[in-house]
């Protein structure tokens, strides 16, 4: 049965930061002035110190759960054990958002620890709808689906990525997590226009925005961008972000930084830049 899931109390359209192990104690000691934080759900599937920190930080900050391991795009069904672990975490921290990816990484019992795009076919749509429906029914809430970064295109497909996302939203009532850096990286690598992508995304479904850094790799005659989340947000991505919120309004925005983790104050400064963009927009 498909429902229109109720959101938790509306999150503030301000900037948050990804919470990493390295910054746990800083959050306890310094209590940085940040609106909310986001964690990778799978990092807290155990117990002990990580979960203890999470609960203590949750006392002072709103929190979002961002997963990488449900593999909603797998032709196989989503693992019940994994769903249960996320459900347990949801019950523990009452997150403002629960999100996953428009991708897959599990097949034949193997987990690939990356996020691989699917061809945007009717079969893929059917599979995503089946998997998202199952997960939302068990969680009793809406989940957000993040657009992927991609380093290739498939030679076949029935939809564009934005059409595919629109169909997913219509069929499952899921929300969207728009990763502006992923839009920029994918469109660069596929020689398409990121602003056209932004204009085609179903704006009303966007509940959260991600911003992150990327790396550029020179290959023969060209440059491929890699979504490594290992640096400050690039100027072009900030510009695309500004255009995006001009088009569909302000949304809660998260600064992601997953590799080459800097001191916490660097992340906070990135969030302050995002807040300046958000503050000049009419609500």
């Amino acid at each position, binding site marked *: 049965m498909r429902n229109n899931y109720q959101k938790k109390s509306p999150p503030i359209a301000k900037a948050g930061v990804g919470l990493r192990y390295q910054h746990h104690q800083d959050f306890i000691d310094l209590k940085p002035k940040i609106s909310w934080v986001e964690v990778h759900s*799978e*990092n807290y*599937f*155990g*117990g*002990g*110190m*990580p*979960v*203890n920190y999470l609960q203590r930080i949750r006392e002072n900050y709103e929190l979002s759960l961002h*997963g*990488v*391991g*449900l*593999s909603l795009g*797998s*032709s*196989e069904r989503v*693992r019940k*054990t*994994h769903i249960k*672990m996320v459900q347990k975490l949801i019950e523990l921290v009452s997150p403002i958002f629960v999100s996953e990816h428009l991708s*897959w*990484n*599990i*097949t*034949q*019992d*193997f*987990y*690939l*620890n*990356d996020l*691989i795009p*699917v*061809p945007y*076919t009717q*079969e*893929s749509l059917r*599979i995503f709808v089946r998997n998202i429906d199952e997960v939302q029914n068990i969680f009793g809430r809406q989940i957000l689906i993040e657009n992927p970064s991609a*380093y*290739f*295109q*498939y*030679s*076949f497909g029935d939809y564009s990525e934005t059409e595919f996302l629109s169909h997913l939203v219509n069929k499952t009532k899921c929300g969207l997590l728009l990763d502006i850096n992923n839009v920029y990286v994918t469109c660069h*690598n*596929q*020689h398409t226009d990121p602003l056209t992508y932004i204009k085609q995304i179903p704006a009303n479904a966007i509940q959260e925005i991600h911003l992150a850094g990327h790396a550029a790799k020179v*290959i*023969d*005659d*060209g440059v*491929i961008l*890699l979504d490594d989340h290992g640096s400050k947000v690039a100027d072009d991505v900030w510009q695309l972000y500004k255009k995006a919120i001009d088009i569909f309004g302000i949304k809660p925005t998260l600064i992601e930084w997953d590799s080459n983790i800097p001191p916490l104050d660097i992340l906070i400064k990135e969030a302050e830049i995002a807040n300046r963009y958000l503050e000049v927009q009419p609500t």
Partner: protein
Amino acid sequence: MRLATLQHLISDYILFKQEGSKLSEIIQGDNLSHLERLNIYRNNTLISLQECLRGTYNVTSQIVGQEFFNQIAKNYIMRDPPREGCLLFYGKGFPFFLSKQPELGNLPYIADLARFEWNMQSAFHAADCPILTSEYLSSIGPSKLGKTIFKFHPAFHTMQSSYNIDELWLVHETKKINSLDHFKIIKNRIKNSLVIYRKDCQVYFENIKPAQFSFVVSLKDGNNLIKSFEKAQSKNKKFDLVQAIQALISGHSIMGYKIKGEKNE
């Protein structure tokens, strides 16, 4: 092509099981070949899993060297890729895999060190469970105490090694360079008996006496208190049962008990 078939082909390429020629007409992009594009995902997967293993086996990787560790980790990943979308407990088979590597013959202690690091990692991330307190334990009547079988906390581990790998680990973790230079790995005739446990979110390890180790292992194997006490006494007639139980309770190592022949507690 059906999605399942496509995903199997891509997965097989990323995990070095296939050479990817069947994907040449399916994976597209300018400038780079289909394999160069797929290699981005292959490298992301490989490097992140190598980093995951290095995180667990940090001291092991320091001793064998980064380059060798990367290669051996890659071989392990190809042989035993993760089966779950959560990597907190990935790499359990790595110590055994190390023990079968002929290049590590000059480091006979390395598999034991890796096993120790695995136990520490498992203890750190083990699920939270209620702890049996001494008050609760004292509520078990004396006539039933001997029949008690304990359920251990998932963070509690036991292991033995002929080598002083616990000291080796500590020297590397505390990074006292002088200590490292003067440190000697020693092979003992009597094995070091280690318990690893978690208390108040901190992971501890202790080198305990053979009788106490025998007692703890017997309890963990599901034997009742009397039988485990007898095993300990066979090693040391003066084995102090009360002290041994107190050590387990104060170490938050026991999460429950049952009395054989009665309903589970």
